[in-house]
């Protein structure tokens, strides 16, 4: 009924895109019915660097929800790594979310009472990273974002740019297939946002698939592919 075994699956992964949205519509019922996404088609291949821009209310949040497995499309298919996600149970979606998707947010969302290292370790808690590897991987991730000298600091003592770098380390510690960044520079000034974008680009150069949702044109223009969303409809810019 589904691909017979690991061999068939891995061969499909070679060719299948990381994300494939086919005719995805997300509508919210109740008068008046709102269609936040309308018949969206989007293909993101492994190693893509994509930005999604659009004014507020254009459907960016819904796009993030759907891509991050936090919401289900009303109509249409979402294939993540060639697998149809609508067939997963809630718990399986949570597990895939924890293991395959990394999130970076505008507001950082670091736990204020936990050290930098603990904050990064939090991302290994729910997705089955082997216990013995966790600390090693968290330190490696913090090393990667250049914060290995801040391991035991509390987030409150860090600058905005450093906090966002901690959040990036947390997002990549479980080696996700897809990194979703939601306005990652919204709380940063020009200099630090440049630093963070440089970090994203380094990670992309290492092979990470990156989707940045933003309303900042300067940030969006750094991406290889740019997608504009307006009124729930998607148009590729470049």
């Amino acid at each position, binding site marked *: *009924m*589904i*691909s017979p*075994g*690991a061999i068939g*699956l*891995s061969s499909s*992964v070679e060719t299948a895109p990381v994300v494939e949205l086919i005719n995805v519509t997300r509508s919210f019922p109740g008068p008046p019915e709102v269609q936040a996404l309308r018949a969206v088609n989007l293909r993101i291949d492994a190693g893509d660097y994509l930005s999604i821009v659009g004014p507020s209310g254009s459907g960016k*949040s819904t796009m*993030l*929800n759907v891509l*991050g497995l*936090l*919401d289900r499309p009303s109509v249409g298919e979402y294939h993540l*790594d060639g*697998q*149809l996600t609508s*067939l*997963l*149970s*809630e*718990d*399986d979606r*949570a*597990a*895939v*979310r*924890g*293991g*395959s*998707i990394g*999130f970076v*947010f*505008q*507001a950082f*969302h670091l*736990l204020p*009472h*936990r050290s930098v290292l603990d904050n990064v370790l*939090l*991302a290994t*808690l*729910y*997705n*089955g*990273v*082997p*216990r013995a590897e966790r600390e090693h991987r968290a330190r490696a991730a913090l090393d990667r974002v250049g914060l290995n000298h801040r391991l035991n600091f509390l987030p409150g003592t860090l600058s905005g740019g450093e906090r966002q770098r901690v959040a990036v380390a*947390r997002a990549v510690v479980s*080696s996700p*297939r897809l990194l979703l960044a*939601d306005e990652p520079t919204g709380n940063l000034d020009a200099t630090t946002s440049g630093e963070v974008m440089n970090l994203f680009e380094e990670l992309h150069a290492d092979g990470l698939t990156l989707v940045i949702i933003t309303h900042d044109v300067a940030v969006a223009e750094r991406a290889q592919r740019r997608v504009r969303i307006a009124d729930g409809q998607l148009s590729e810019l470049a």
Partner: protein
Amino acid sequence: MKLQRWLAHLPTRLRFARAPGKAAEATPKAALENVAVAPAVKHSDRFLVQDLIIEASFGIGARPSRLIMTTLGTVLGIASLVVTIGFAQTTAGQIASQFDAVAATQVVIEPGSSRDARGKSQSTARLPWDSGERVERLAGVERAGLIAAVPLGDVAITAVPVNDPSAAETLSPPLLATSASLLEAVRGRVVTGRYFDSGHDTRGDRVVVLGANAAEKIGINRVDSQPSIFIGDRSYTVIGIITGVERRSDLLDSVILPLGTARADFGLPSPDELQIQIQTGAGDLVARQAPIALDPNAPENFTVQAPATKSELQESVQADINIVFLILGAIALLAGGLGIANVTLLSVMERVGEIGLRRALGATKRNIASQFIVESVVIGLLGGLIGSALGVFAVVIVSLTQGWSPVLDIWVALGAALLGAVVGLVAGAYPANRASNIEPITALRGGT
């Protein structure tokens, strides 16, 4: 390499996927297959109880001052419950120990009686003369002795045989007849001289023993000169004076002679009652067995007064637990529970961002709910432990100042602490449910 690891567990997870239209039959098979092939994540690498406890403890420890305020209601409620039950048990212990000293070791058996047509009380049985020997063979019986009132009629008891018409007429002390073992059965004490023995009894020797009050009244205070008293015109040698008779204090006012003597001289028909000293706790046993030992054919004809057994005593005292204080404790506990619910709800609202983040990092709704449930259970348990300890402490302190021995069932103290945890569990259910239903993206975009 990391990609391979991810691929290794993704397929098995995705095999949960159901073919459209075949969902019902596919699911169990897929689940089995999932187990059979390879578990996607080793159990030890999943989100386990230990992780849950660590995460919850950080949540609890984040705001210590609020924690204190939160537990206060539970502390008060649990403490007042423990104190109430503790005082009830302590006073019960006081009553029981007094009860033990006075009557818990005494059984009295009398022949049953019925009323005849003229309303006159008639004995339906008769205690055998060897009742003492019969019941002393029973387990739990320490000493047993017979006692009988001897009707005097108009015979006077005097220290001198001279009938002095000018002297004021004195009321004669009552005359009692007992077996030799009675003194011990009623815990009497010899002041001077001795009590008569079974030899006196068998031979019907004319000896008497005086109760301390009777001796004073008659005017005899020493027996080494072998004083005599006269009952009617017969002389009896006084061989001892007794006191301290707790069970039958009327013995102190009486002149006491052996049963055998009373039968020979006054025609005593039968003993009145059998006094038995028993071991503590043997009341039931002796009350059941003694009538059979006395008359195997008609044991029901005897009236037995036996001490209440321990369970009856406890039941009667437990009814005395102060209902008002229990209700107050329950109300305080309710307030404590509402306090926990309130603060947990507040904490959920404050930590919306954290909840959204955890969901994004792969936490299921159940993971989130259980984290908040554990937090409130731990807060409740903490309040329960502190309250229980305070309650025990209060009971001990008050008992010490009152000179009582504090009594408190260990299970009351432990159960009260656990009750705190239950309060936390109940109080945390609604906030945890709220937390688990928070929409992750709304939470993550809302700031904080």
